[in-house]
């Protein structure tokens, strides 16, 4: 489809605004900086603990939230989405292009952050490398699921950023940790399950089964893209007289 390239290009330019990019770079640099400080102080903490607490619980959802809600949500908010919609193209191409940009940029920012943080805190021993690799892959897959979910949220509500933040901080941060059954509704838990399946288990944790984790991430991603496409197909402009 020859409209895919232009759609990706315009979304990418919209997402990579100077201030937003700077904010994201600062966010992903945070775990690396902490890893570096720990290393310089002579500490050798478990890489799994650092990657779990700093990257998977904090950096990954926040980066995906900002990028996922901005990819299409900012165009919906400022009205420029109309220029994409009044074209003879299937709505799924617009969603796929924006999802690719949101998850791609999330991966480009978070995966190197995970790798550097893992290497700095745990070194390059065989076990450490396995843990780092496991979390890098988990961040990649979790990032795709998170950004797709937040992209879909931005097509449903203009308050996607706030709702996404509540989901991340309240649901995933508190509820999913307290109530066993709700772990299946947590992208974070599924991401940690993937990391554990690939050898990145945090000591003392009880992650979700590998198969269940992969299925949750796949269902969230596909479901979110289907919902977003349906929402865009029946999109109605706001305002006007």
């Amino acid at each position, binding site marked *: 489809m*020859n*409209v895919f*390239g*232009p*759609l990706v290009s*315009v979304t990418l*330019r*919209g997402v990579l*605004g100077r201030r937003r990019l700077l904010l994201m770079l600062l966010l992903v640099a945070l775990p690396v900086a902490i890893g570096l400080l720990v290393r310089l102080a002579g500490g050798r903490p478990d890489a799994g603990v650092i990657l779990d607490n700093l990257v998977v619980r904090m950096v990954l959802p926040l980066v995906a939230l900002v990028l996922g809600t901005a990819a299409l949500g900012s165009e919906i908010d*400022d*009205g*420029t989405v*109309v*220029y*994409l*919609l*009044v*074209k*003879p*193209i*299937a*709505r799924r191409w617009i969603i796929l292009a924006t999802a690719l940009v949101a998850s791609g940029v999330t991966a480009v920012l978070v995966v190197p952050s995970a790798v550097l943080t893992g290497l700095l805190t745990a070194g390059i021993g065989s076990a450490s490398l396995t843990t780092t690799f496991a979390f890098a892959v988990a961040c990649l897959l979790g990032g795709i699921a998170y950004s797709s979910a937040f992209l879909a949220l931005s097509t449903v509500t203009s308050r996607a950023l706030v709702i996404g933040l509540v989901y991340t901080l309240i649901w995933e941060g508190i509820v999913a940790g307290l109530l066993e059954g709700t772990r299946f509704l947590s992208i974070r838990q599924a991401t940690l399950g993937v990391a554990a399946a690939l050898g990145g288990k945090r000591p003392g944790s009880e992650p979700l089964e590998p198969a269940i984790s992969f299925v949750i991430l796949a269902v969230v991603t596909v479901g979110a893209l289907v919902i977003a496409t349906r929402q865009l*197909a*029946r*999109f*109605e*402009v706001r*305002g*006007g*007289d």
Partner: protein
Amino acid sequence: MTIDDPRMTTPPVVPALQLDHVSRWYGNVVAVNDVSFALGPGVTGLLGPNGAGKSTLLHLMAGLLRPSAGQVLVRGRSAWRDPAIYADIGLVPEKEAVHPYLSGYEFALLNAQLHGVAEPAAAAVRAIETVDLADAAHRPTGTYSKGMRQRAKIAGALVHDPTVLLLDEPFNGMDPRQRLHMMDLLRSMAAAGRTILFSSHILEEVERLADSILVVHAGRLAAAGDYRSIRRLMTDRPHTFTVRSSDDRRLATALIADPAVFGAELADGRLSVSTSDYAAFTHILPRVAAASGISLHEVAPTNDSLESVFSYLVSR
């Protein structure tokens, strides 16, 4: 071969745009109320005061709003949820926003690419030149003036050579020279067989450009058809003038004898005169006053806002 043979019948003419008893409401608020019309080639002005429902109508025609009742057809196809109609449509929305990081040329190019135009770069250059934006073509639209952004939006709407052009307040922010240029462009496109519908709340804009008009007020279609006949209706409607003179009572008596005057009332120290012929009254008044030896201190038309014109058309 019988007369029923389909090859013998003339295919029905499908209007470029057709609204059939279309309404649109938001909760309890009715934005568009039972509007029907059909448009073919030519320039049509969609005239109405702010808040009349012009943008809602254009959004319905552009498939960006679902009709609450009725049907909107573009070349015989439903406008709602059918992206294929956009091959025929060029839309200039009222909202000013254009991707601020794109230059005018990049914006036109993006539109050409998304429309699947065969040579998008050449089409974008042509569209930019058509709207007289070549000098600023490679500057980000975020640095453009309102009029330049408006022209960039028009370039984006023209780039795939649509047969139906929907423009929401297209002359907003343009200087008089750009306005004239754009009017010439739209006229030549209409002469080439395009269907052009533009909204405006400025009567003079519509007067200069439109062959026919649709007048909307409070969501209803108040009048539709040839511009001149509707203009005549507007001009011939009852007008009221407030007059202050050296002797209001005697002037009222003198004026009421004229057939163009159908009412005169003295209230709050002012004379209020009603006439059915605006032009005739402006000639009669000084003549009658002079003949009666009365000095005119003040003459002011009342209820002459567009709002009152539209209200009058709706109430007819």
